[in-house]
């Protein structure tokens, strides 16, 4: 069995989100070192605030200002901070009920060690040096003895309110394509294309995924297909893709490689775009160092009979 391939795979996206009036007021408030909550119909103050009462589902927008001091309601000591967490040194995760609030806010507490943390301890917000209107404008909490205060009304009005946030996210994976696709990729490195034959219906699938989608059984008989094939269908691409150095218009086609029962897709070159047709016989063109055919070009053979490929259109 060939070695199973693996490669790093990074999924990264900066998610842009718009804010409703309550979230906007809360995050703008953090930028201005002001913590806002929202009062429910039953008189409870929720911090962080939400736009709908979690009990009644009523829309709520009665904003109040609460203190930047509060009480830890539960905690957990994190000896090994992970990437993107708020502090790089060991810290406590905490739920903090800010003075004047009836619910708790999740954040982190900067403390020298777990022995310095307990449920019920008094803490205050440590503001980030630069603030942009995000939950991370609270750098962390820190121990701080003080007397609890009461919430005060707040109109939620600020100059230049924050109306949206961008939340970057990155996840790192090591991708392994499994046995069947590893074999396909390794064959490509030798400029060969392999598929797998279903033991039941005898069809050859390419690229192989280890299963026959018709019969739902494992496929493991490796079959070399191509290198030539037949265009089964195609389209003319008229819009130039970003970072793609191919002049438009060009043709993108489904190609049934000889011996395969499933068409692959690839670009057609070496022929004017308006002369590509169903049944055109093509062969792969490899470029130096590539791990995949760059495109397919006409072989010069007569066109294939429609009956020869109609099952693959």
């Amino acid at each position, binding site marked *: 069995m060939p070695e199973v391939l693996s490669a790093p795979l990074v999924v990264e996206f900066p998610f842009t989100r718009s804010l409703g009036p309550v979230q906007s007021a809360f995050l703008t408030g953090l930028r201005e070192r002001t913590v806002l909550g929202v009062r429910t119909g039953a008189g409870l103050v929720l911090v962080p605030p*939400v736009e709908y009462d979690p009990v009644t589902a009523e829309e709520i927008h009665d904003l109040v200002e609460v203190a930047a001091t509060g009480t830890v309601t539960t905690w957990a000591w994190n000896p090994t901070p992970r990437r993107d967490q708020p502090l790089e040194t060991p810290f406590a995760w905490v*739920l903090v009920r800010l003075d004047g609030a009836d619910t708790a806010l999740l954040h982190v507490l900067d403390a020298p060690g777990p022995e310095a943390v307990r449920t019920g301890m008094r803490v205050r917000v440590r503001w980030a040096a630069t603030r942009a209107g995000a939950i991370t404008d609270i750098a962390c909490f820190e121990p701080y003895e003080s007397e609890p205060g009461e919430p005060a009304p707040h109109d939620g009005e600020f100059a230049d309110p924050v109306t949206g946030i961008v939340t970057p996210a990155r*996840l790192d994976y090591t991708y392994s394509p*499994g046995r069947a696709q590893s074999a396909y990729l390794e064959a490509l490195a030798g400029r060969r294309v392999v598929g797998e034959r279903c033991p039941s219906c005898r069809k050859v699938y390419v690229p192989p995924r280890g299963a026959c*989608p018709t019969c739902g059984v494992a496929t493991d008989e490796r079959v070399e297909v191509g290198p030539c094939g037949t265009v089964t269908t195609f389209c003319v691409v008229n819009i130039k893709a970003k970072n793609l150095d191919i002049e438009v218009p060009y043709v993108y086609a489904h190609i049934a490689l000889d011996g395969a029962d499933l068409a692959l897709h690839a670009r057609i070159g070496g022929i004017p775009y308006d002369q590509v047709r169903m049944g055109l016989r093509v062969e792969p063109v490899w470029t130096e160092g590539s791990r995949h055919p760059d495109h397919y070009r006409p072989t010069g053979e007569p066109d294939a009979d429609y009956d020869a490929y109609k099952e693959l259109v």
Partner: protein
Amino acid sequence: MRDVAIVAFAQTDHLRRTDELSEVEMLMPVLHEVLDATGLRTSDIGFTCSGSSDYLAGRAFSFTMALDGVGAHPPISESHVEMDGAWALYEAWVKIQTGEADTALVYAYGKSSPGQVRDVLTRQLDPYYTAPLWPDSVALAALQAQALIDAGDTDEDALTAIAARSRAAASDNPHAQLSGDVPAGDYLVRPLRTGDCPPIGDGAAAVILAAGDTARALCERPAWIRGIDHRIEAHGLGVRELTDSPSTRLAAERAGVFERPVDTAELHAPFSSQEVVLRKALGLDGRVRVNPSGGALAANPLMAAGLIRLGEAAARIHRGESDRALAHATSGPCLQQNLVAVLEGESTHA
């Protein structure tokens, strides 16, 4: 209501990594196993429903590839939930209740090995106030554990005992990833030690549901679903009472758990502390055998672990080792969403 039963269950051996297998390659053996157990073929199945998550694979629409293992051509009636397969089972149960299908194939799979599962799970959190802090799954469970300790509901020794009991039970489960003696270990996020946390691994499971006489024809002792319900709680952790699980209790009530005693409970408690919460919510006492399979502390293939609880409970009924079993599945941080089902063998249905 139609009588609907779980008539077959299969699961993979759960392993730390399965690099040599694509998802469909991992899944296919369990699909074949449940089909073979019933003698059904793909073309006989009325409805197919699956549970998985793209975030585990890091690829969009990864579940569509897994369909190759079902044999989805010619076309089949199929659906997918982006969560644990227990909820796929619920959807399939509803489909059978509508009368549109008499049988259903439900499967679920998850490969956690390609990514950092603690980070991956942060992406299910509220994106405005919580996810930007990257609180990982262990950290959130640890906050709940400390709340339980503060409330006097448990202590660290009791949590260690839960983990030890689970992994000892898993010695009888050839599919488990961890079994036998496992040291309590170091703190991962205090108060949770490595022994209190589930193993990270890859695995898959499948069940077949059938209605009425079809179920009786396919299985000697079908595991009848006498009730099934699922409930969710507020998203904000600071709004919830973390030491309790009112959603589990309500789902159990609606599923009929409290009408008569159960003899077995398969609880989806990935963290030892969560078993404390669930036992309280469900009113389970020492007479109920909890997680004879070892539970999620012995094997926790994400997106399949909840379906496995239903499958394990059903399998005990199939084997005559249980007459009335409770199965529970959870989703979200700190037991946010919970599904409860009651399964019974024929003899207790009169």
